C-alpha cells in the first residue's frame, strides 16, 4: 500500500467505525452485571457489519489488504470506546493461518474473514507456553496443561503450545474443543485445563517465537495491533478524565482548575501524543515493508505502561463514581488489567528492545 494514503484510510475508517461502536458501548452493562461474552456480542456484530475482520487480510483471502494501517485504526477505536478486544484475536489468527501459504488453512481463513469466529488470544503473557503438545493418532495433537482464558465457550482460543520436538507453535482451539473449562466467579480469567484432549494437527497454524528477540511476522504484527488498542485505551481514559475534571466542581471550581489536576492531565496528554506518534511509526514501517520488530516490542511496552498510567489518573480524578456505572472510567481500568500484558509484560518487552539497542550501540561504538 502507498504511504500517503495511510492517513486517509485511517481517518475514514475511524470515522466510519466510531458511530457503530458508540452504539455498542452504549449497550455495555454496568459493573456487577458483567458477563464478558454477552457484553462483547454487540461489539462483534458491529465490527462484522463494518467488514472489519477482512480489512487487514490479503486480497486473495477475501480481504481488502489495507494492512496494519486499517487494523490498528480498528483496534484504536475499540480501545478508545472501552470495548472488547476479540477483534485482535481474529486478525492474529488470520496472520498465523496464512504463514503456511494461502492454501493450507484456506477454509479457516475464509470463516475468520467472514467474521464467523471470534477469537481470544490466551497464554502469550509469559515467555514459556503453559500448554504442551504431544502427538496423538494420525497427525492429531494431544494437549496437556492449563491456560487462563477470559472469554466464554463461544469464542475460539489462539494460544501458544510447546512442541514435543522443541519450539513453540500457535494453535487455534475451536469453541467446545479439547479443554475442560471452569469459569471463575471472582472475575479472574477462567481456567482451561487440557488433560490429554486431542485436536487435529491442522489446528497448529504456524511456529511462534516464544521469548523472542523482537519478532516480525504474525507475532510482531499482533504486538503493533495490541499497542494500537492500548493507545485507544489510554486516549479513552484521558478523554474520560478530562471531561470529568471539566464538569465536576469542587470548592466552587472545576477540578481542572486545580494546578495538580491540570498538570497531571497535561503530562498524560503529552504521553499519549508521544505514544500516538510511536505507534504510527511502527505501523508505517511494517506496512512499508521495512524492519519494524524492534519498534513492535517498544510500542507494545510503551502502550501498556501509558494506558496503565493514564487510567490510574482518570480513576483518581473520577473518585468513587469511577468504580460505578456512572462514569466509563472503570472500563479502562479493567481493560488495562486484561489487555495490558496479554502479549507479554512490559518489563520483558523492554528487555528485548533494550538488548537490541545495546547491541546496535556497541556496534556503532566499535565502528568509531
Amino acid at each position, binding site marked *: 500500500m502507498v504511504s500517503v494514503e495511510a492517513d486517509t484510510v485511517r481517518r475514514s475508517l475511524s470515522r466510519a467505525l466510531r458511530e457503530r461502536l458508540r452504539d455498542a458501548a452504549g449497550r455495555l452493562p454496568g459493573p456487577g452485571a458483567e458477563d464478558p461474552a454477552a457484553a462483547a456480542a454487540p461489539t462483534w456484530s458491529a465490527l462484522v457489519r463494518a467488514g472489519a475482520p477482512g480489512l487487514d487480510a490479503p486480497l486473495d483471502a477475501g480481504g481488502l489488504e489495507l494492512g496494519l494501517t486499517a487494523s490498528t485504526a480498528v483496534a484504536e477505536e475499540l480501545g478508545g470506546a472501552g470495548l472488547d478486544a476479540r477483534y485482535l484475536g481474529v486478525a492474529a489468527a488470520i496472520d498465523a493461518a496464512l504463514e503456511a501459504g494461502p492454501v493450507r488453512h484456506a477454509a479457516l481463513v475464509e470463516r475468520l474473514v467472514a467474521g464467523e469466529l471470534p477469537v481470544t488470544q490466551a497464554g502469550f503473557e509469559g515467555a514459556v507456553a503453559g500448554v504442551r503438545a504431544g502427538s496423538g493418532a494420525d497427525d492429531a495433537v494431544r494437549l496437556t496443561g492449563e491456560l487462563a482464558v477470559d472469554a466464554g465457550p463461544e469464542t475460539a482460543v489462539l494460544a501458544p503450545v510447546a512442541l514435543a520436538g522443541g519450539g513453540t507453535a500457535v494453535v487455534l482451539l475451536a469453541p467446545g474443543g479439547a479443554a475442560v473449562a471452569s469459569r*471463575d466467579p471472582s472475575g*479472574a480469567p477462567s481456567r482451561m485445563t487440557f488433560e490429554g484432549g486431542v485436536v487435529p494437527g491442522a489446528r497448529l497454524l504456524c511456529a511462534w517465537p516464544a521469548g523472542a528477540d523482537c519478532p516480525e511476522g504474525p507475532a510482531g504484527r499482533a504486538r503493533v495491533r495490541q499497542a494500537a488498542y492500548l493507545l485507544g485505551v489510554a486516549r479513552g481514559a484521558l478523554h474520560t478524565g478530562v471531561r470529568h475534571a471539566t464538569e465536576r466542581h469542587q470548592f466552587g471550581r472545576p477540578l481542572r482548575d486545580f494546578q495538580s489536576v491540570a498538570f497531571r492531565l497535561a503530562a498524560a496528554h503529552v504521553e499519549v501524543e508521544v505514544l500516538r506518534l510511536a505507534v504510527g511509526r511502527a505501523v508505517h514501517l511494517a506496512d512499508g515493508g521495512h524492519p519494524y520488530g524492534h519498534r513492535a516490542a517498544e510500542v507494545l511496552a510503551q502502550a501498556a505502561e501509558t494506558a496503565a498510567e493514564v487510567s490510574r489518573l482518570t480513576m483518581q480524578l473520577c*473518585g*468513587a463514581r469511577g*468504580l460505578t456505572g456512572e462514569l466509563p472510567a472503570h472500563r479502562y481500568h479493567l481493560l488495562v488489567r486484561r489487555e495490558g500484558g496479554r502479549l507479554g509484560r512490559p518489563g520483558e518487552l523492554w528487555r528485548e528492545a533494550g538488548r537490541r539497542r545495546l547491541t546496535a550501540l556497541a556496534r556503532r561504538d566499535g565502528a568509531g
Partner: protein
Amino acid sequence: MYWYGEEIRAYRREVRALLAEPPVRAELDALHERPGTDPDVRALYRELGRRGLLAVNWPARYGGEGRALLDAAVAGEELARAGVPDTLYVNTVQIVGLFLLMAGSEQQKATHLPPLARGERFASVLYTEPGSGSDLGSLSTTAVADEGGGWRLSGVKAFHMKSDLTDIGLCAARTGPAGGRYDGISLFIVDLHAPGVHRRTIGSIADEQFHRIEFDEVQLAPGDLLGPENGGWPLLTQALAIERTGLDYSLKAENWLAAAGAALGPDADAAVCEEVGRYGAAVDGSRLLSWEVLEGLAADRLDESLAAAAKFYCGELAARIGRWAPTRVTGPLPERRAAVLEAAYREAPGLTVAAGTSEMMLEIVASLALDGLAKEAAAW
C-alpha cells in the same frame, strides 16, 4: 515503637489462639468459599465480639476489654492477617466507636457502644453525598429542628460500603443557615432502621458494593445530636482524622504483597526480587507511620498532619501493590489466591479516594507541616 514488648507479644499470641477457635475458623472458611462476592459477615463478627476481639481498648463498662489502644491495633492486625474483611470493623469499631468514646455523651456511650462491642450492631460513617466527595463543606443533607427539640433529617448519603446492613450511622447534616460552608453543620447518630430511611445498592467493580441511603424526613430525637448544634465542623475534622491511621491500608498492602510473594516464590527472577524488596520495605515503613499515629492517639495527641501523611502513604502504597500484584504473577493460580489478587486490582482505585483523597491529604500535610519545616530550615 520499633519493638513490641513481651506484653504485646503475649497478647498477640492470645488473639491468634482466639482466631484459631473452631467457630471462628468455620465462619472464615465459609467466607473464603465465596470469593468475588460481597458477603454478610455479621455472624463472623458476632463470634469475634464474643471473644472480646472487637472493642479491645474500650472501657469494660461499654462492653470493651479495657486494654491499651496499641493492643487494639495488634488485634486489628491479626484480624486482617486471618482474612477477616475489615470494612465493618473499621467503620463500627475504629471510627464510629472511637468517635463516640471521644465525643459522645454518657447516655450515648452507654446506649450504643455495648452492642457494637459485641458484634450485634454495626455502624456506618455517613459524610459523603452524590454531589460532595472531598469537599464536605458543600454537603446538602439538612436536619430541620422540630417543636419537640428533635430534628427531621432529609437528604442523600452515598458511596459507603456495607451500609446496606448497618444499624446506626454517624451522619453530618446542615442545621444552621444555608450561608456558611462550615458553620451550621451538626453531627447525629441516626437509627438506620427508622421510618423514612431508604437504602439502595450502587454497583461497583470492587467486590464490596457501594450503597446510598436516602433520608426522607427521618425523625431524630434530641439525644441523637452528637456534640454541639451547628458546631459539628471542628468535631468532623477530628472524626476524619481518627479514620486516618492508615493501618487498614497498610494491612491490605501487606496481605496482597504476601499473596503475590507466596505465588512468586523465592526463585523469582531478579526483577521480581527488586520489586518485592522495594514494596516490602514500603509496607513495613507504612506500618511504622501508622504506629506513630496510633501512639499519638494512645497518648491523646491527635496530629492531623501525621494522620494525613499516614493515610496518604498507606493508601497510595496499597493501591500500587493492588495494581501490581495480579499483573506480576503470570499463569494460572490456585483459585482462592487468584480471587484475592484480582479483587485487589479492582479495589485499588478506591483506596486513594476513600477516607480522604490523596490530594486532600497532601493539602493537609502541606498546610500543616511545611511551615514547621521552613522554620526548622531557617534555624539550621
